[in-house]
Every structure is written in C-alpha cells, then in structure tokens.
C-alpha cells in the first residue's frame, strides 16, 4: 500500500495551498484559519508557531481530517505524498491516518486510553492498517519502544498508561505514531506538558527518529526557543494567518513582520537581555475572529500601523529566498524601523 503511491510532480510529503477553516460558534462564524499555505518534505521539520488562538492547532487537525463537526474546511490543494486529500472519502482518509500520517498530542497524561494496556494500544494501529498480525505488531512495538529509549520494553507492553510518568507516556505516544512508519508526523505541542529537562530529551529523540525514519515533521508550538533549535522552516501564525515564513535563520535573525519582531523582543535571553530590565511587549489583545476580517489583523497592536493597513487583503510576499511576510511595509522600511526601535531590552 505504501510505496505504490504515484510520484507527483512535487516531492512534498504534504502540500497545502490556501487552506481555510471556518467554525460555527454561537456568536457567528469563526475565521479560525485563513489562506494558509505550506509544504513539508521528507526529513524536513516545519514549525508552526503562534500564540493561543492563532489557528495552529486547527490547521493541524484540518490536515489530519479531524476537525470538529462544526468546522468547515476549504483548500485549493491538500495533498499527502501526492494523493489528493480533498477528494478522498472518510474511509480512505481513515486508512491514511495512523499509517501515512501520524499525530502526537500535547498532553501525554490524557492522550492514551486509561483502560487499555500500552501494548494493546500500540498493536491496534499496526493491525488496523494491515501491516501484520498480533505477533508482528508486538515485535514492532517492542522494537519501537526500545528506539524511543524505554528499557524493558517487552514488560512495558502489559502496563497501563497511569503506571508511567509523563515523559515515558510521551515516548510511548511517539513510538505508537511510528508503528506504521508514516511519511509525516504532526506533533502538537508535544513537550509543553513536560518538565524542561525532559523536554530537551524528547526533542532530541524526535530529531533522531526523524533522521532515522526520514519522515516529514510538522511541529506545532508556542515556544520560540524550541522552534529556533529544531526548525528547518518556520511559519509564524497570527489570527489564523501565516504572517511570516522562512527558514529559522531568516525568521529569527531578520524578522520582517512586526508581530514576529514583537514576539522575539518579549523573550528574555540569558546572557543577552539585561537582568531586570523592561522586556519588549505587544500591547493589546488578539482580535476576535468572528465574521469577515478586513486588512491587517495585527494593526491594532502594531507600532507601525498606517492607513494602508486598514483595508483589503495583504498578501504573503515571498521573495526568491522563500522568506515571506504579510505586511505592507517594504523590507527597507522594516529594517529602518528595527534600527530606530527603542530596543532597551537588548544590550549590544
């Protein structure tokens, strides 16, 4: 089943063009995700970063075909290994989930079913996708548990989730996702619920596994520190839109969108930020995304806002270097602003 997928013109594992998600809520229609484009290649890590409510998790659920019933999704293109996900039936989509595309969730404490053993839950996905019988499933599970660094893997199979610590459960989740050797793994804040020392271990593990299994990885997080360390490419989301995209170097070292700049100024960097100094901050709050939106959605919080920001759509300008941002400012203007900005927090 895998391997036979027709090679498309693009070798992107996942290709998303113009993804829109609308959710019906009591107050109206929530524009959760608007005009989102991205793609992931094998062996590549794309980080989608943004604050709560920016649409990053909804984006991932849309790609997984797991949106809530109240949500509707439209896209110009949504392909997984060249296969069009917009035209598949629910049944066919389910065949792909867990097989070609896997997902790791934020809270390892609640993401495993408490009443079934680890082994049962790991083997189930293998058998479901017709990879083999119970025996092979068991062998594969043991192999992967060892891969994710769990000792005495065979005996762990008989344990229940509540008998494991959070870090171990997240390792189990990762192993379970890899049971069918997927081409793409989506990790939604997989380390947020874990302690910092465990976080580094899990991130290292994900990178190692990605190298070994050569899968595409979409990593969703709010933590810019994590993004900087693991991303090949970054998409910064704000209010349902990708406002800036590029490789990690471009986005972190030369951020072009005022929102990205603002976010980076908010974070104290040991050794760079003067201790006890005032941090940069973004005033105001995220707008409610109910109903049609006009103009730049960041303008209410932006220190460079001008009349041009108030109407029409602002496109994601992508230069030849793949560094794109959704802002009316020209690159020159932005660079000038950065120079002029009162950057007290950052010591030279």
């Amino acid at each position, binding site marked *: 089943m895998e391997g036979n997928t027709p090679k498309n013109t693009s070798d992107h594992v996942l290709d998303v063009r113009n993804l829109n998600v609308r959710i019906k809520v009591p107050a109206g229609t929530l524009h959760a995700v608007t005009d989102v484009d991205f793609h992931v290649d094998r062996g590549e890590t794309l980080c989608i970063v943004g604050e709560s409510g920016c649409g990053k998790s909804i984006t991932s659920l849309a790609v*997984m075909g*797991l949106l809530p019933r109240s949500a509707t999704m439209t896209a110009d293109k949504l392909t997984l290994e060249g296969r069009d996900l917009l035209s598949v039936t629910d049944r066919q989509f389910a065949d792909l*989930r867990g097989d070609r595309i896997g*997902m790791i*969730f934020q809270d390892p404490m609640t993401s495993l079913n*408490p009443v079934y053993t680890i082994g049962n839950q790991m083997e189930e*996905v293998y058998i479901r996708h017709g990879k083999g019988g119970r025996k092979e499933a068991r062998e594969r599970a043991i192999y992967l548990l060892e891969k994710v660094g769990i000792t005495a893997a065979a005996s762990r199979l008989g344990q*229940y989730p509540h008998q494991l610590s959070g870090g171990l459960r997240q390792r189990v989740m990762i192993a379970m996702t890899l049971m069918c050797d997927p081409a793409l793994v989506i990790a939604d804040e997989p380390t947020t619920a874990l302690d910092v020392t465990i976080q580094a271990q899990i991130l290292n593990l994900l990178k190692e596994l990605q190298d070994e299994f050569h899968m595409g990885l979409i990593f969703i997080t709010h933590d810019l520190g994590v993004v900087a360390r693991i991303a090949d490419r970054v998409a910064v989301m704000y209010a349902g839109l990708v406002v800036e995209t590029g490789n990690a170097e471009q986005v972190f070292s030369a951020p072009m969108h005022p929102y990205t700049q603002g976010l980076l100024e908010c974070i104290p960097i040991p050794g760079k930020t003067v201790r006890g100094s005032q941090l940069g901050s973004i005033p105001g709050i995220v707008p409610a995304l109910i109903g049609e939106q006009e103009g730049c959605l960041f303008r209410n919080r932006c220190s460079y806002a001008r009349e041009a920001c108030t109407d029409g759509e602002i496109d994601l300008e992508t230069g030849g270097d793949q560094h794109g941002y959704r802002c009316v400012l020209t690159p020159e203007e932005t660079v000038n602003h950065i120079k002029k900005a009162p950057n007290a927090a950052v010591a030279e």
Partner: protein
Amino acid sequence: MGYFLLRRLAISLLVAITVSVIGFSLLRLSGNLAESLAGEDASPAQIAETAKAYGLDRPFHIQYFDWVTKALQGDLGQSLFTKEPVIELITDRIGTTIQVACYSLLLSLIIALPLGVLAAMKQNTWIDRSALSIAVFGQAIPNFWFALILIWVFGVLLRWTPISGTDTWRHFILPTITLSTFAMPQFMRLTRTGMLDVLESDYIRTARAKGLSPAVVLWKHGLRNAILPVVSLAAVAFGFLLGGSFIVESIFALNGIGYLALESIQRQDFPVVQSIVVFISVVYIGLTLLSDLINAQLDPRIRLH
C-alpha cells in the same frame, strides 16, 4: 486490589449494621409494640405479660443484639398478622419480585444503552432531542397511574395482555414496562453524558488519529470508559426497583415482597416490615459492592490502587 476489597467490605459491613439498627428502630417507632401484640382490648397486666413474653421489657440494645443473632441464623421472627415465620413469607415471594426487577432492569438497559450512545453520537440532532424527550417524559410519569392506564388500554380496551397474576410470561409484560419507566431515563441520560464526555476526551482523538474505524473508536475506546458510571447506577437502580416494587405488585396483584410489605404496613405488621426493609438494604449493599468490584475490573486505575 486486596486492600481495596478489604476497605470496601469494611465500609459495607458498617453500613449494613447501621441500616439494620435503623430498620430495627422502625419497629419501635410504632409506640408500644406490646400493646399492639396483646390486642386492642388488653388490660395493662396482659400488656406487661406480652412484653415479657416477647422480651420487650429488656433494654433496646439487648433486644437488638437478640434480634440480629436470630436474624443471622435465619429467624426473622413471625408475622403479627398471619403468625407465620417472616423468613418463609419473604422466601416464598422474593422470586416474583426479583423476576420483575430483573426484567425491568434488562428492558431499561436494552433501550437506554443504544439510545444513549446514539444520542451522544448525534448530539443536538432530532435523534438526540427525541431520546432526551423520552427520558424527560419517562421521569415525569407517575408509576402507579401509568400502571392503571396500561391496564385500561392494553388489558381492558385492547385485551392484549392479562392484567393481574403471575401465571405466564405475558403477565409480566405490563409490570415490566411500568417499572422500566423509572430506571430507563436515568440509564439513558447517564450513558449519553458519559459518552459525550468520553467522546471529547484526548484519547478518543488519539484513536481517531490512528485511523481506527468509527465503530472501533466508539465501542472499544468510548463505551468501555462511558459504561463505568452505568454499572454503578445499575446496582443502585436494582435496589430501587426492589424497594419500589410494591407499586406494580399491588396494582398488578403480583405476589412479591413489595406487595407483602405494603400489606404489612397497612396492617401495622412491623416484624415483617422491618425484615423486608433490612433485607432490601442488605441486597442493595451487596449489589453496590459487586458493582464496585466490576468497575475495578473494568478500570485498571482503580484496580491497581
């Protein structure tokens, strides 16, 4: 598990003792028991004699221990009215009561579980709304009145079913339906809310992300978790069905312990009443114990504590 069992048993025993004290006190509520035993026209001397004969002149706790000791040996005293041993009265009739209670429990579950699951899956659709409406209506119907209406419609107007007695299975149809209107709505609502909670949980999302079919997600990952509270309720409901059986038994003339209890209450036959009350309580306690054990078996988090 051993510890869990031990603790659970200890609590059950404590509750059983308390309930038996309350049940025993019920008998003494009636004022002077010796007076009613001796008969209406008894003289004070006769009453005192009766009190002595029945041991009623002893302190309350002595009488209680005496009663418990005898009860544990199967001697629940004798009926004031028929003079038969209470234990025989109960054992003769318990079968009918348990039969009706089991049928009703079964009928309730057969209707409520699928309906509850369906309602949760199709939340806010017409299926969900009608399921909820059935529950609301069922809860509001006065049982005794519903029984009369059933008799009138199906027994008298349509002549489909017999309206009293226990001779054939058809005699149990109306009593079972009547009693089910009590338990069914509760099961339905509990299954529905349990299922709704479970369907929103992270592990269901994980199961769907694994590509499992909707049926596996629902029946394997959903129901097992949603069923936990229903098991507990089943035990509680069975206890209530036993305790509420007098309504249908008296209306449909089923010769069960409920009818016996009602008659005994009306005749002020307190040895019988207290025995039945304590009997039902003890059955209830045993059932909740059982349901906790089943739950512990279904839920490894409890099992391993």
